[in-house]
């Protein structure tokens, strides 16, 4: 780096802070990093409120954003994700980058009126995303 700095010294005097902030930017997490987003759906929108007594609204959530390069510990991604990242960056950009997808779900409890007039409380598996991961 000595040569580079010396050669730059001849150019216009750049403030060290500008270089440093540019330099550190590459290590910041991407602005639109992979994370969980809300999407509140009301059952009356789908005209199901005649049948569903509770809950009134359903928020399935979803995952959206770019996967940063350092996914290992932040997203609990498997080692394969880093391999795929390197392939995309160094070998073949037609291989997609790791994607931001849900990694954990929670069930949804629903209270419904049945066609015969009986009432049912049921718990449906995997209806709400609770955590995102990069895969």
């Amino acid at each position, binding site marked *: 780096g000595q040569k580079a700095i010396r050669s730059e010294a001849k150019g216009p005097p750049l403030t060290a802070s500008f270089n440093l902030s540019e330099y550190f930017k590459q290590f910041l997490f991407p602005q639109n990093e992979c994370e969980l987003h809300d*999407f509140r759906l009301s059952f009356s*929108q789908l005209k199901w409120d005649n049948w569903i007594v509770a809950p009134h609204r359903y928020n399935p959530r979803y995952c959206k954003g770019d996967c940063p390069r350092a996914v290992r510990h932040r997203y609990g991604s498997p080692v394969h994700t880093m391999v795929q990242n390197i392939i995309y960056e160094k070998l073949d950009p037609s291989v997609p980058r790791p994607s931001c997808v849900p990694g954990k779900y929670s069930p949804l409890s629903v209270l419904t*009126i*049945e066609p*015969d007039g009986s*009432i049912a*409380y049921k718990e449906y598996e995997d209806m709400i995303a609770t955590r995102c991961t990069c895969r």
Partner: protein
Amino acid sequence: SQASAGESQAGASESVESEADPWSLLLPVDGTDSSGLLPPLFKVLSDRRGETPKLQPDSRALYYMKKLYKTYATKEGVPKPSRSHLYNTVRLFSPCAQQKQAPSNQATGPLPMADLLFNLDRVTAMEHLLKSVLLYTLNNSAASSSTVTCVCDLMVKEPMASSRALPRAPYSFTLKKHRWIEIDVTSLLQPLVASSERSIHMSVNFTCTKDQAPEDGVFNVPLSVPPSLILYLNDTSTQAYHSWQSLQSNWRPSQHPGQANVAARSMKEEAAATVERSPRHRR
């Protein structure tokens, strides 16, 4: 991210409002079978396509089930982790048509012998019965503080007349404190539900006496008949949530305890060996 969520929400609601029928959102454009596309809950509801329930449930039954829902789930519909039960389905049935009421006379106690017919068609083959109760609502005129001891005779008339009565365990309850009275009928219904019997005809007879004044003879329990039948079921299908599975998935069971122990021991030996080898660590 809130802004983007807002955008996606606004976008979706516009598209929902713009469509006369929201079903077009959910059903495949080429009209093929939607079962593979829709989650089980949406599939069940899309089959009812905007109809309204022909039979409305009893308001007291609905009130009871709403209280049960609030006990088990949050406002967003997420099951509370505190729940310790194994059932993931609870069904409340009101009697179809109350059969002829046997005349109430001294012999049958204060409540007329109630003939009840329940149609359990909604119970699927994958739903296994864990517990069932008859639920009586106490009229609010029952606000007396007297303690009452009741004996309940319950007989199943169909499909096979089994005059097996419930073990006459007397049910004693203080009227003032109870809004509901639950009579456990699991032992009687278990074989019927297990044999996929879906129409159950039973008769119930309550005989109650006041604890303080048994000499007054039978006591007129102000129960609002007819009772509802509640089934606590474990739905074993893949669409249902199995809490014990999620407990297990958090706890990583070893393939074989012995095998896991061997692995642990060898790792320990390995670690001890490396410590021995490097002099620095020994210090």
